[in-house]
């Protein structure tokens, strides 16, 4: 009987070692690749986050600018509307004061003479046959068939103010 040949205690040890080494190298490569991937993903995510932030800032700035422009426009419109209202109020007040002053003539010494001049104007417009009557509010009215002339303080004041022109604007310019 031939004795068994003597060999390494564990004949598979080199194979195992080689496999282990290869596995460790693979694992190292995988870990490195994973680390690289993680780094790249992280960098990409950071870049995306920065881009999103930039975009959000841009949108925010645009929205803000739009809102600010709309606010300014609205404020300008409101100011303009108030200015026009104030001018209209001033004009109405002028009309009221002019009417008050014109009505005062009735208490003045020249009232009869004024009434006479107004009556002459009625005859000029409607002819000598016109009927002239004193108006309770002052002034006179003249009538002829189908025609009428109004020379009351209201009518005279309105006539003058309608032709006042840009002088009225001095109310809010001065």
């Amino acid at each position, binding site marked *: 009987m031939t004795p068994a040949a003597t060999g390494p205690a564990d004949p598979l040890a080199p194979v195992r070692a080689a496999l282990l080494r290869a596995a460790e190298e693979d694992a190292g490569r995988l870990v490195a690749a994973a680390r690289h991937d993680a780094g790249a993903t992280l960098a990409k995510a950071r870049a995306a986050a920065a881009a999103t932030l930039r975009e959000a800032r841009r949108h925010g700035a645009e929205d803000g600018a739009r809102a600010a422009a709309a606010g300014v*426009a609205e404020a300008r419109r409101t*100011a303009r509307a108030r200015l*026009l209202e104030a001018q209209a109020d001033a004009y109405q007040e002028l009309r009221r004061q002019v009417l008050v002053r014109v009505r005062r003539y009735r208490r003045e010494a020249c009232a009869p003479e004024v009434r006479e001049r107004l009556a002459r104007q009625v005859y000029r*417009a409607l002819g000598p046959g016109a009927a002239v009557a004193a108006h309770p509010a002052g002034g006179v009215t003249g009538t002829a068939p*189908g*025609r*009428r*002339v*109004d020379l009351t303080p209201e009518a005279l004041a309105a*006539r003058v103010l309608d032709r006042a022109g840009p002088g009225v604007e001095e109310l809010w310019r001065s």
Partner: protein
Amino acid sequence: MSGANGPDGPPPVTYTSVRELRGPLAVVTGVQGVGWDEFATLTLASGERRYGVVLEVRDDIAVVEVLEGTGGMDPARLRVAFAGSPLTVPVGEGWLGRTCDGRGAPRDGGPPVFGRESAPVEGAAINPVRRRPPGEPVLTGIAAVDALTTLVRGQKLPVFSAAGLPHLELAVQIAAQATTAGERFSVVFAGMGLTHADAFAVRDALEERAAAGELCLLLNTADDPVIERLLTPRLALTVAEHLAFDGGRHVLVVMTDMTSYAEALREVSAARGEVPARRAYPGYLYSDLASLYERCGRIAGRPGSVTVVPVLTMPAGDLTHPVPDLTGYITEGQIVLSPEIHAAGVYPPVDALSSLSRLMRRGAGPGRTRPDHLDVAAQLTAALARARQAAELAALAGETALSPADRSYLALYPVYLRDFLDQGRDRTLTLDESLERAWRVLLTLPPGELGMLPAAVVRARTTGAAP
């Protein structure tokens, strides 16, 4: 707003013999010396004042159309005063920043408009002998207009549209954006027959420019009296003429909708019992439209200019309808809006191949806008014409049967719609931006197809080399 009776003349006679009221008409008897188109003031028993225009006079009877209508009037207690002349209005800078109705009464809560001088609203066309030819551009901030159909100072360039198209938006956008590059510029916007919603939208969009003192807004709504609609464009032009020729401004008058104006003219003509002509419009429609359009222009020896952009809708899209037809005879080109382009969702839907500014060469090109402007406009228009031909050919023979050049033109059209024409309602483009958009479209073609442009300029654009 007034008539001719001076403060030192005889006191105004008021007539009390109103025979009848019929619809918006008041029939006054026993009148003396009253003429057609004379302005009248009607005072009700309550003291309320309304205004009217004399439509017809026969013997001692005058028919007055009451602008505010005759509702609530008692003929027995009505007083009618005639001004002795057609409507006159104060003129000057007082109109800037104001919103008024079609006869100039404030709609903005402010006082009446004042001015150092008065002028008849009826006005008159500029004496042809004293005219200076239109020249220099009015920039609208709209690529399709500025680059391809440039509006020139003193020109009349209508917008032809149809129901459902955004012509009002375009008119408002032009009024809000137009400028004359640093020179004094104002806009008078006359809206005729607008719905209340449209009138609100117009006022909202233009209020900022009005608040800046650059714009006057005259709004005649659909429910306002038709005779006021006839006064609206005349008032706008009267205001514009004085801002331009006395104030030295370049003034753009936008008038919309002229079809609504012509319908008002037809209604008044029928009320006057005149013999109707084509489609029942009065026979004098042509001369009436000309009396408005010919009030624009430039005057020799005077500063400023009046440029008119009338907007009109073609009923059923009919270009032969009397209003666009007669307008086309008088004006100097047209901007046509297209339902197909509008359906594609593109704004403004300007049909460049049907649009034309006959005076463009007087307002664009070297020394006026940019040296390459006219060449770029011509090349882009030619390319669009070729693209249309290619599309027709492709519809017949199929796209594969087209030559490579035709295929490049076919591909150009959507790029043109997207990158040139479509600019949105809120965006103002500078002329440079508009022309650069045109260049981007043109550079999608092979360089050999750009024969209308200087070769050196094309080379510089395609290779980056200096021209």
